[in-house]
């Protein structure tokens, strides 16, 4: 996972670049929590551009990071979510509280 910090904006971007399942999510979770806890961001963005597989482990991963970010008063957003991944998220209803930002072409993600 690629991590980008934007100090002035207190923004953290996680570019996940592997399949998300029970096996891989453990490592992603540890890295993300380490960064969130030390940076206490106002906003966390999960970029799924390079994720071509995700199962229910992804739901647990995002809910957990949402709660942690929230505990510091921050927000969490998802970007570049393919239809395939969206279908998995939709099953759980978490999209009602965690937004997918459409057409994400922020220069910050390069």
């Amino acid at each position, binding site marked *: 996972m690629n991590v980008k910090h934007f100090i002035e904006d207190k923004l953290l971007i996680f570019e996940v670049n592997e399949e998300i399942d029970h096996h891989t999510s453990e490592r992603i979770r540890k890295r993300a929590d380490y960064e969130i806890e030390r940076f206490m961001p106002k906003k966390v963005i999960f970029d799924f551009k390079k994720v071509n597989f995700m199962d*229910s482990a992804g739901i647990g991963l995002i809910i957990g990071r949402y709660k942690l970010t929230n505990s510091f008063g921050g927000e969490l957003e998802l970007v570049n979510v393919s239809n395939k991944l969206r279908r998995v998220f939709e099953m759980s209803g978490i999209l009602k509280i965690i937004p997918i930002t459409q057409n994400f072409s922020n220069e910050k993600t390069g």
Partner: protein
Amino acid sequence: MKNIKNEMKMEFASKSANEAFARVSVAAFVSQLDPTIEEIADIKTSVSEAVTNAIIHAYPNKDGVVKVRALLYEDEIEVEVSDTGEGIENIEEAREPLYTTKGNLERSGMGFTIMENFMDELKVESIVGLGTKVTMSKKINKALQKNTY
């Protein structure tokens, strides 16, 4: 009786590294039926759910064996994932959305719901102390269309 076109079986140790191996193998096998990308994605996700459940829930504190069997019919795939682990006490409850016994491990309780929605049929059989068998099937529509024209 439906005609079995092809069949495969595999078994592996209940290690999380095998989750990707299992779903990719089944996806490669079903490609003979010429499924759409969406159909392959649905099958891959469902196999991943069933295999992960066996690894996490069936054998929580020990290593065990997970078996996967896939049958191909003319226009349908059936996948069986079985374990000889703990078993499920109340299957009806376990199948409910958001029901999980492993919330502390960040499980969301959506595995069975995903299998149910992404496949056409889902059957869960389990005996506490003996193990669990999940059988799921899905029609491959592309193959269906090909056969009618």
